[in-house]
């Protein structure tokens, strides 16, 4: 079952749009949008303690939730594409960029406050993503 095929990574088609890192960035933006839409959907649907509410089915009554689901599906396409070319651990770590855009979007669209602590967390995430980018550059130098 567990062979080394993940170690052999193919080259993507030329062109900026087919760059797997751009696709990860689009995935991140769409996922952040989806999270915010789902939050709006959850807030606008009636809260109750039925079993359906636990399973998240009650939220399906809200159009916002469906918009969020569509954004998730679109982000999924970009994610599957990126997985063809990038190692899972690295690609998934890059999706932490969602945590930059969710607070920013919540501030812009939901009026949530960004505290000093949250702002510094965003800067730490950016530093981490820059390190990941450097790690990629080192790996690709060797190939």
């Amino acid at each position: 079952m567990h062979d080394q095929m993940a170690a052999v990574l193919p080259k993507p088609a030329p062109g900026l749009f087919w760059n797997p890192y751009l696709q990860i960035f689009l995935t991140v933006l769409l996922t952040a949008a989806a999270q915010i839409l789902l939050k709006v959907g959850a807030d606008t649907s009636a809260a109750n303690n039925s079993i359906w509410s636990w399973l998240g089915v009650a939220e399906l009554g809200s159009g916002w939730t469906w918009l969020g689901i569509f954004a998730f599906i679109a982000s999924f396409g970009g994610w599957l594409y990126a997985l063809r070319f990038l190692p899972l651990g690295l690609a998934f770590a890059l999706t932490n960029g969602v945590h930059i855009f969710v607070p920013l979007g919540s501030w812009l669209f939901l009026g949530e406050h960004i505290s000093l602590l949250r702002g510094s967390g965003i800067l730490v995430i950016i530093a981490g993503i820059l390190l990941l980018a450097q790690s990629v550059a080192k790996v690709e130098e060797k190939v």
Partner: protein
Amino acid sequence: MSLLAWTLVIISQLALVAGQIFLKRAMSRREHGGEKARGWIGTLVIGIATMTIWFLLWLGVMHQIELSKLMPLEGISPLLIVLGAAVFLHERLNWRGWAGVVLTCFGVLLVSAS
């Protein structure tokens, strides 16, 4: 918050890690071509099914628990996935990669602690 809610959160995290590993295996098989490419759609379907379980649980707990309290658990998922990918997919990261993963997770914790 109730024990049930947090149990569902943990199950959803496990589903996330397992689902991503299935997805990656499916896409690697597809890319590999030949004999190994066979059955990649089956693996993809298992991955999508596992991710659907994660998604519904996540949607449900989001109703019960504040997003800001859920985010720290989301924050450690990249670490879990890097570990899962190392064990099941034999992926290796260099020290910059590890430092980057740890730093982004720490940043997510800071974001969610506020």
